[in-house]
């Protein structure tokens, strides 16, 4: 796992890809191609005391001269970021945390995204496709307007199944229901499941997947202080043998084996 560095990054493009969801391209002088899928960056709007702390965002896509992030406006930090003009500079510490592990040769993969959770999964899908792992993507969204990364995934030639809360596209209901169906239909060896989305979705998915013995990796999105493993603010309770211990999402995560995560905690 490469240790992070803290660099200045310039916003070179910004696009509202869905209501309140922005794709932003950041250029910096360090190559991003070594980033593992699921790793994140810690972004600072410099010289501000409000918001005081950095905000964590997954590296959504990489380029030779930087990377993209894909984010939803949910509060003060993301709101201010969305207002930043092209040309503005921010600071990013990256790459942080550990990424998803690709499945062993001969496996298949099911990638399950909920909402903006797709931001943490696209790079994984790209790598799976590149490694010729047979992959299906299941994507849950509020409605068809909120389906993220559709054209990017289609461009990779990976099959995409959609579930919407309001039925405006694909399965009318939860993406976890879709996951159960797809898992049940899979006849060969058990596929590897990868997921990122709202906690209730990941918790439900974990149940669906473990009932079917499918190895599952989830990317958690806890609140963070330092992003570097020192503040111990981002921990999640993890089952280890008989014991429970707190693991830091920023260093030991953000990707965890879903079966050892104790879901009955608040983020």
């Amino acid at each position, binding site marked *: 796992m490469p240790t992070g560095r803290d660099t200045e990054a310039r916003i070179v493009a910004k696009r509202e890809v869905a209501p309140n969801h922005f794709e932003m391209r950041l250029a910096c002088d360090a190559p991003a191609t070594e980033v593992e899928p699921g790793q994140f960056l810690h972004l600072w709007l410099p010289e501000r005391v409000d918001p*005081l*702390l950095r905000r964590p965002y997954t590296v959504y896509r990489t380029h030779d001269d930087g990377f993209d992030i894909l984010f939803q406006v949910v509060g003060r930090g993301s709101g201010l970021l969305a207002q930043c003009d092209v040309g503005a500079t921010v600071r990013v510490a990256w790459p942080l945390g550990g990424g998803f592990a690709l499945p062993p040769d001969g496996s298949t993969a099911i990638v399950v995204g909920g909402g903006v959770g797709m931001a943490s999964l696209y790079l994984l899908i790209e790598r799976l496709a590149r490694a010729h792992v047979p992959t299906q993507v299941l994507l849950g969204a509020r409605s068809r307007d909120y389906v993220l990364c559709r054209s990017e995934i289609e461009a990779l030639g990976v099959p995409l199944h959609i579930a919407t809360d309001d039925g405006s596209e694909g399965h009318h209901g939860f993406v976890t229901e879709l996951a159960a169906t797809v898992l049940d239909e899979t006849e060969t060896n058990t596929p590897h499941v990868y997921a990122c989305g709202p906690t209730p979705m990941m918790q439900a998915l974990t149940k669906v997947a473990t009932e079917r013995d499918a190895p599952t990796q989830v990317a958690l999105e806890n609140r963070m202080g330092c992003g*570097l493993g*020192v*503040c*111990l*603010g981002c921990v999640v309770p993890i089952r280890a043998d008989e014991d429970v211990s*707190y693991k830091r999402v920023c260093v030991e995560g953000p990707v965890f084996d879903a079966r050892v995560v104790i879901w009955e905690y608040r983020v």
Partner: protein
Amino acid sequence: MTDLSVNIGGMSLKNPVMTASGTFGYGSEYAEFVDLNRLGAVGLKSITVEPREGNAPPRIAETEAGMLNSIGLQNVGIDAFISDKLPYLKQFDTRTLVNLSGRTVADYVELCGRLDGTEGVHGLELNVSCPNVDSGGMEFGVDASMLGALVEACRGATTLPLIVKLSPNVTSVVDMARVCESAGADGISLINTLLGMAINVETRRAELSRGMGGLSGPALKPVAVRMVWQVYNAVSLPIIGMGGISTTEDALEFIIAGASAIAVGTANFVNPRTTMEVVDGLESYFRRHEIPNLAALRGTCIVG
């Protein structure tokens, strides 16, 4: 040349810039950003006798110009600290201030004893002000007679420089500092976090699992500067000032108020290079104002 060196109760630092306990891990985590050789001292996360798992999440929340934390003293315990963490720090030409936390006087005395004479440990800081555990020493920090007894007992258990880190959640921090002075402390750290709380109004839940937590960051700086100024004018022990320091100007405020050294806490999370920027900034301020050494600036605040 400007001389930024300073002696804190027997611990001699090449410059007054330190890291605050709990905000810098055990040093290695920041090696990518900070040249540890350029730090006056590294202040380390509170250590307890036994390892501690800490509090349930959520443990942090952001507030206006500040943050609340309720980590609950998660740490590896004294044994693992000595065997696994301390060796890394020995390679650097800096000082270590090991922060101790306990439930009882005996806990603190045991920790002092274990570390006395341990290579690589240059000073001890008694955390008597952790607001985040039921028995985190906070009762020592708010009760003058308990505090006096604790400091005296620790004084008897170590020959290392003994710093007491006081709680700001008291009516008179000066009274507490006086007690430490009489009990034989070598210095005072000011301040630990202010007790605070934040509530999510949509869920009506406290943002932290334990409800209350410790407020740190720029928001509390004026309170910290005030306490340093009050204690500086009342006791003659050296003071390590902290609370919201993010820039050179912040550090200077504490020194002008009376601090002999300063520690950067929450700002490490925001800008991991803060300590280095403050070292550079102090050097240029002292040069620009032609101030020969730290003592010439310390406590020179003009009022009126």
